[in-house]
């Protein structure tokens, strides 16, 4: 039977999935270079707010005050970067027309707006001494919203059809949690006198190591889909990010507690490392979307394993 012959033939594993002249199935993201920097500033602002709150609760006000200022810097830079991506300020307001849980960008816009407002109130109250009760409430809210502010961006990119992002929906938030911790720790360690900066240094080192380890785990669990992290631009950025983060962490751990200069240098290297990490993730999405094999390969494999029939169906046999 002819039909059977064809089926047999298509069972032979193909080296490369079929495609239309090698063209992508997906559209690559249209996001501008502001976006990976926003991943960084959002993580920095969100994580710094929680760092500040915990420092304050522990009676370390030198660290707390500096972390609050860093948090304010992060949540102020974030909407500026987003507006620059969108083209004009009024376009950001359209984000707040609704609240949609199927859209992490929608939920994230509310988180960012809330974080921004609470952090501004918290910092205002902290540095003027006005409205202390309101200030305390704002601090708690800013810190609590800061945590998802740091990780929702991982969910945002995971909630697309881009395989290298979508299939990392459990691992990428850990990468982002690690790099956010590292960013806030690095900034606070550089700005705070040595004697008060212990927790910031530990956060910087722990965050940097976590981010590198989580990125490796992510790449491993992605299997073939994770290939962009070892190829092309994203591959280079991934290796650079790992090197910078670990070198910065080593310097911070070895000398950050005894020399302010070393703490500043280590903070700068870690910051460069985590920004590079955000860029590696961003570029990996483009590489993943642009090669049809990452889209077609796993889908075809699902069909061949019999997990799904896929979207195409032939006539019933013998019909």
């Amino acid at each position, binding site marked *: 039977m002819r039909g059977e012959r064809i089926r047999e033939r298509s069972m032979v594993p193909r080296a490369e999935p079929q495609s239309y002249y090698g063209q992508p199935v997906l559209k690559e993201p249209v996001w501008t270079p502001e976006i990976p920097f926003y991943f960084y500033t959002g993580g920095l602002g969100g994580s710094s707010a929680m760092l500040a709150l915990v420092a304050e609760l522990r009676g370390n006000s030198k660290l707390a005050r500096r972390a609050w200022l860093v948090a304010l810097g992060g949540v102020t830079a974030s909407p500026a970067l987003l507006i620059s991506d969108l083209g004009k300020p009024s376009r950001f307001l359209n984000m707040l027309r609704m609240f*949609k849980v199927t859209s992490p960008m929608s939920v994230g816009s509310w988180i960012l707006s809330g974080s921004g407002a609470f952090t501004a109130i918290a910092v205002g109250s902290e540095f003027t001494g006005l409205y202390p009760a309101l200030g305390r409430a704002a601090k708690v809210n800013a810190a609590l919203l800061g945590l998802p502010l740091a990780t929702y961006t991982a969910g945002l990119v995971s909630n697309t059809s881009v395989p290298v992002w979508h299939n990392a929906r459990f691992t990428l938030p850990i990468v982002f949690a690690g790099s956010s911790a590292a960013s806030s720790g690095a900034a606070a360690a550089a700005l705070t006198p040595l004697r008060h900066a212990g927790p910031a240094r530990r956060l910087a080192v*722990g965050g940097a190591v976590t981010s590198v380890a989580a990125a490796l785990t992510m790449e491993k669990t992605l299997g073939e889909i994770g290939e962009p992290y070892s190829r092309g631009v994203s591959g280079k950025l991934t290796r650079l990010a790992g090197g910078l983060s670990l070198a910065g962490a080593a310097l911070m751990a070895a000398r950050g507690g005894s020399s302010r200069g070393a703490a500043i240098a280590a903070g700068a290297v870690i910051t460069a490392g985590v920004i590079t990490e955000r860029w590696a993730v961003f570029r990996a999405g483009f590489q993943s979307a642009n090669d049809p094999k990452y889209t077609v390969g796993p889908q075809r494999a699902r069909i061949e394993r019999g997990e799904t029939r896929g979207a195409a169906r032939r006539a019933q046999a013998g019909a």
Partner: protein
Amino acid sequence: MPSHKLLELETHSWPGSYGDSAEPRMGFFTDTSICIGCKACEVACKEWNHVPDSLQGFSGKSYDNTTALGANDWRHVAFIEQRKPLGAEAAAEDLVQAAERASATDGWGLQTYQDGEGVRWLMASDVCKHCTSAACLDVCPTGALFRTEFGTVVVQEDICNGCGYCVPACPFGVIDKREDDGRVWKCTLCYDRLREDMEPACAQACPTNSIQFGELGELRERAEKRLEQMAAAGQTEARLYGADSEDGVDGFGAFFLLLDEPEVYGLPPDPVVTTRNVGQVWAGVFAGAAALGAGIAAAFIGGRK
């Protein structure tokens, strides 16, 4: 009002949110086996919808110089040249079958896509699938993308803020940003014409009826018959793509009859709406947030302060 198979065709907000003003769910059945690659559909779409031109020049990809769907190409005719002997005659086991198939090709125009000398030409006019579960619509933070009373998926250009989320969300790479105005554009299934009881421009222009417009339920029945006819004529490679409610996007509003695997036409073989996993996405986000909180707390343990 939508009749029989209503439940199967139902989407998240159609017909529910429209109440009495819901119209039947409308769609396309694009039967690529009778497409002749004339591109009248592409041209008619551009003309009616004032879509800016998008001259790509010579692409080197057979007669395709549109190359892909995009902000300025809402219909795209793909051309595939296959160097394999797959005409009805080459496939026939014996002369009797060959004769039967030859008469079938005469009867139903199966011949349109093939050429001599062992080359098979496939042509297919691609378009937005108007998915039952549409990722573009689900992820849109502004509500610019919405479900119409006809069950189709349309962008409201006055609300779109160009955030671009829908672009990598679409599992088919349909919707895209127009560079000069920063907003996204795609097929509207001629929403304006539907409201005037007119059929979409591409369907009206198509000379072979490769593009068939109508109530989705009826189109599915028609497609089923066509598939069986073709199978009976020995065209076992024919397949329906997106005609069932059980696929990863719960069925297409614009579905196809193809003559090879979807990926050969640049279509994903098993598209899944990304928001099917949105619960896992949020679980990941909150696990990450909790880990971050725990890490910050841990940084204060063991130190002096």
